[in-house]
């Protein structure tokens, strides 16, 4: 039962194409899911659920969305937060005006975000790199402005704040942290599975071809327009659903100003730290960026207390900025493929253990 493919024979095409070719991986992921679905709700308290685990899952989903666009299709976007906002406000309006069940409303909210994403993705057909970054900045500012200025989106509440309606699925109320956690977890795992399958199929391969060199991709017959716009649509859909989940399962009340440029950057950082072009990396990145401030808060205060310096929260939050920035540079310089790459190296090591030659 060593961790390697040798001895694990594949006799069917289905076996050859499975996501986790190594048995130990399958067992590990099964265990992880079992713990996440059954173990965590029993053990975790309210703080853990609503302050750490739910935001982690939601941001992992948004990161996944951006990773599809930036990591796989190679189109840099600084507007992820705007697409999240579209998803959140879309879902709110579908529930408010059409009295929809929540799951279809979330999905339709995501589709709204996808539409907006396609619209702002159109320039990507002519431009790339940081030119595109500026185009997505337009989305970022325009969407937040539109949601604030046009009261219709927020049902004419003051300053555009929306309050999530009560949720229920088939009569089960979703009001406790545990039920919200389970809802988020289900949606995120399904969408993650979908993403994994997308990137290892035809779709994902054409995205990667476009990323590596779009002219070459066009020459070998990949339709650029379709591929790029599909990447924008799928990415914005993921961000949109993440936004809807953020509004309904995490925050409860949310205003357009929550979805600022800073949030977009945060998601971009999650992508970079976790690993550009990696599904698993999106989860690592989200966990890292969510946990870092909490960790710093716990560590920095006693550390400075040791030297008799009392530091204010302002300094801690500024140090957080510096550490974030420093980490980004560090990761780009030392490990451009992020935490996911470290994980992979670990797996390679494990694969040849105990005989490294």
């Amino acid at each position, binding site marked *: 039962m060593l961790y390697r493919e040798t001895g694990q024979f594949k006799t069917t095409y289905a076996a050859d194409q499975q996501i986790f070719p190594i048995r130990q991986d399958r067992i590990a992921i099964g265990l992880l899911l079992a713990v996440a679905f059954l173990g965590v709700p029993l053990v975790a308290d309210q703080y853990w659920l609503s302050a750490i685990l739910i935001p982690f899952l939601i941001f992992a989903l948004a990161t996944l969305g951006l990773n599809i666009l930036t990591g796989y299709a190679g189109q840099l976007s600084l507007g992820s937060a705007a697409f999240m906002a579209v998803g959140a406000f879309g879902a709110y309006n579908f529930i408010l005006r059409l009295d929809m069940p929540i799951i279809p409303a979330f999905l339709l909210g995501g589709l709204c975000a996808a539409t907006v994403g396609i619209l702002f993705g159109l320039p990507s057909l002519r431009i790339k*790199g940081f030119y595109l970054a*500026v185009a997505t900045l*337009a989305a970022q*500012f325009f969407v937040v402005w539109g949601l604030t200025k046009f009261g219709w989106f927020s049902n004419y509440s003051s300053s555009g704040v929306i309050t999530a309606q009560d949720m229920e699925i088939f009569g089960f109320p979703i009001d406790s942290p545990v039920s919200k956690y389970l809802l988020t977890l289900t949606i995120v795992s399904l969408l993650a599975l979908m993403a994994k399958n997308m990137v290892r199929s035809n779709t994902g391969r054409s995205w990667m071809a476009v990323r590596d060199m779009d*002219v070459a991709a066009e020459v070998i017959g990949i339709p650029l327009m379709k591929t790029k716009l599909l990447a924008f649509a799928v990415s914005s859909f993921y961000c949109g659903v993440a936004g809807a989940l953020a509004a309904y399962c995490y925050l409860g009340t949310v205003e357009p100003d929550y979805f600022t440029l800073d949030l977009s950057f945060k998601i971009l*950082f999650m992508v970079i730290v976790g690993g550009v072009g990696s599904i698993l990396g999106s989860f690592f990145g989200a966990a890292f960026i969510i946990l870092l401030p909490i960790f710093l808060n716990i560590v920095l205060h006693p550390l400075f207390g040791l030297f008799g310096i009392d530091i204010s929260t302002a300094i801690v939050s500024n140090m957080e900025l510096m550490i974030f920035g420093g980490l*980004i*540079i560090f990761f780009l310089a030392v490990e451009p493929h992020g935490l996911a790459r470290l994980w992979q190296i670990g797996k390679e090591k494990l694969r040849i253990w105990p005989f490294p030659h």
Partner: protein
Amino acid sequence: MEFFFEVLIGGLLSGVMYSLVALGFVLIYKASGVFNFAQGAMVYFAALTFAGFVDMGAPLPVAFVGAFVSMIVLGILTERVVLRPLVNQPQITLFMATIGLAFFIEGLAQIVWGASTRRIDLGITDEPIPYILDRFNMVVSTFDLIAAVIAGALVAVLAAFFQYTKIGRALRAVADDHQAALSIGIPLQHIWAIIWTVAGFVALVAGMLWGARNGAQFALTFVALKALPVLILGGFTSILGAIVGGLIIGSTEKLAEVYIGPMVGGGIENWFPYVLALFFLLVRPEGLFGEKHIDRV
């Protein structure tokens, strides 16, 4: 009609400010191909440092030199710590690294100088020039005019520096082709340190002028983001483009705010430049004065 011209001139003058920030972007992009997202943070840092020295009681020239020295240190450190390990990486990686750098500088500036807004007083009055007020019945502030003159002078100095000095020639050589420049013995690392220092200087001038107008505050970093559409309009590699783009963005955003704004509820100044740049990209992706880029497989 007078009102139109007043808005137009106000817009043009604020466009000068955008140009100043955009100039810093262009300098670095020309010399190293790095799209320096941290230019806005550098403007903020420079303004805060300058204001900080003034608040500590230093006279204006001393504060200016002090802030300039800290920008030099920042420039050299950036070259050492950020650019050198990332040599030969794709441009997009460098771009993301400068986003990290921007966060780092913003955090650093606020730890060193505090997050509160600091006033900068350059001793220039911000009042309408009486002559123009009487003659044409338009409000044009002395400060804006002086800012425009300073910006013009800065551009002239930079153009001369690029054209007539030995370092300037080296800079242009590096901008043209890194490897060719290296092979004829131009030290890349020095050139990069110099160019970041020059960009730091431009950031300092921009920071002082912006700061004198609005105070040295965190919002400066957002204003600096407006330099991005300016660059798109003007092209990434053209100093002239930065100036023209700045003027276009400044004037159109003010005109749009005044004439289109009321129809949709105002506040469009925040996104109008970006959307303008977006449409511009669709028509002319390389900008007004940029070099056309041809892809080869």
